[in-house]
């Protein structure tokens, strides 16, 4: 996993609430056995017409927003299915940061595991970010937990352990393996 310390990029907003993982990546693409290549199918049913031509009214197909790496959305983003294909698709498409009013728990965890940073900001701030133009960059500073924008700098919270994992791009399993004696001890008593 690549370390994530700071990120500078442009934004795109889909301000609906409760965007579920079925929307982010529809089930017909869950049959793949790889982790990569899902970006093409991100928001598939909103992004394409039946004949696979791009639906120009969907914001991701807007020329000005095509290079966005920061997605801004409403409340309860990533609800529904536990499919990690959702963050895989977002990441593969090019998003590193998702800023939302709130996140579904499983989706939040899945993001962290994939070097993506989910950030919760309140409605008033996100309503300002929505007005950013396609070429206006903002900067995320994970170390100081700040979103730096033309409107001002906004703090966000993140658990210090998750933060450390993202900052250093650590492999979860390798960390856990260091606790093997404790796992063995637990097993000897309980399992």
């Amino acid at each position, binding site marked *: 996993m690549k370390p994530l310390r700071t990120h500078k990029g442009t934004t795109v907003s889909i301000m609906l609430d409760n965007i579920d993982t079925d929307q982010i990546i529809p089930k017909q693409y869950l049959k793949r056995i790889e982790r990569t290549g899902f970006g093409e199918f991100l928001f598939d049913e909103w992004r394409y017409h039946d004949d696979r031509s791009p639906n120009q009214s969907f914001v991701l197909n807007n020329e000005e927003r095509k290079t966005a790496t920061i997605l801004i959305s409403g409340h309860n983003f990533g609800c529904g299915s*536990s499919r990690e294909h959702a963050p895989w698709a977002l990441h593969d498409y090019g998003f590193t940061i998702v800023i939302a009013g709130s996140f579904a728990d499983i989706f939040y965890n899945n993001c962290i595991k994939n070097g993506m940073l989910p950030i919760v900001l309140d409605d008033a701030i996100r309503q300002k970010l929505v007005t950013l133009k396609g070429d206006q960059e903002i900067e995320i500073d994970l170390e100081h937990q700040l979103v730096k924008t033309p409107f001002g700098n906004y703090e966000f919270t993140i658990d210090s352990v998750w933060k450390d994992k993202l900052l250093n791009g650590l492999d979860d399993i390798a960390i*856990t393996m260091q606790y093997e004696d404790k796992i063995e001890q637990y097993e000897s008593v309980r399992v």
Partner: protein
Amino acid sequence: MKKTLFDKLWEQHIVTGDEGKPQLLYIDLHLVHEVTSPQAFEGLRLSNRKVRRPDLTFATMDHNVPTENQLVITDLIAKQQMDTLRNNCQEFNIPLADITDEEQGIVHVIGPELGLTQPGKTIVCGDSHTSTHGAFGALAFGIGTSEVEHVLATQTLWQVKPKSMGVCLEGNLPKGVYAKDIILHLLATYGVSMGTGHVIEFYGETISNMSMEERMTICNMAIEGGAKAGLVAPDQKTFEYLKDRRYTVNSYNERLVDWKKLYTDKGANFDKEIFVDVSTLAPYVTWGTNPGMGVRIDEALPTIKDENDERAYEYMGLQPEITPKEIPVQHVFIGSCTNSRLSDLEEAAAYIKGKKVNSNVRALVVPGSKQVRNAAMKQGLHTIFIEAGFEWREAGCSMCLAMNPDQVPAGEHCASTSNRNFEGRQGKGARTHLVSPVMAAAAAVHGHFIDIRKEQTNETVTYA
């Protein structure tokens, strides 16, 4: 110090770490299926890691298995995923209920059936509806594929302790109103993020009176309220259910001692609490594109209050102020990990007996497991369904998420006993309405939703 059931379950599984920070939890049972596991096994191979406890792992195939004829898999990509699971289970020595095995079925149906699901266990699966198993007093939650790999390699998971929420259900359910309607009512009233960051314990008189299957229906959809898990404290019904199951038969008496200690102490506090009198509830129908967009059958669809509603109405092809009875239904799906157990099929069959499926409706019954299917056939339920015009299928997830050929065409409406009515869930452009099994059966007969309470009452009057 008074503790909730959730506190007890959590404490018993901490390997290391302090409260408030990610703690390493031991996982007692890891259920695996074909869709969310291939990348996890691949990860193990790439880092040359083993499965730590294959004996605490159990796999089956459910998400994309065909249900018309399980031996004819026309979707080659789906077949590759099933083959991959079979090979992975062989390579890592994991027990598998394969497509042809008598134990095959939806992972959340077979776990309890086999007695793998037990009170006091931590249970995970790469599927959000793992919350179902909480009905047995197990701490059970869905995880992503990276976490699947983590559990395979270490039998543990890093988790921050969620908060606790109590949902107290009191009163008797009126006739025609079911466990499904309770959870749809909760979602319609408190929203699809009512439980985010919380583990919900359901308790009270109504829960005590419920069968294990009804409790599973409620815990199953705790995730639709965003909850980390749903829980019901185990009681005599739980113990009876588990008594002679394959994985409990040899250790039952010994485990019973520990199971009996699993309850929320009198005076323990939840972080958040809801009280519901279920005696005033009615059958529910969802009208929109998330499970919280539901109304009582005797209520009109709500007015548009924001962009989310507007979009949902447009997708569903419906207008505010109409009643659910005016919604035409072209498809009926009785199945899924929410409502595909024997009692669900019994209730639907009791309604359907002697009636006919409306000529405008295609109706499917997909039992949750081979065991459910066989038990139903022993009672002759399949004959009732088939004679009425239903298709009687093999076990699997089927039209709940339409990963197999069972799909709803664009623009058509489906009365479904499943758990999610998201856009495109049952097929691109498909319009899903979540209901109880009897409401679905009634929609199959009438070609639209009806108030089953009235029909049932009328029948009583006729016979009296």
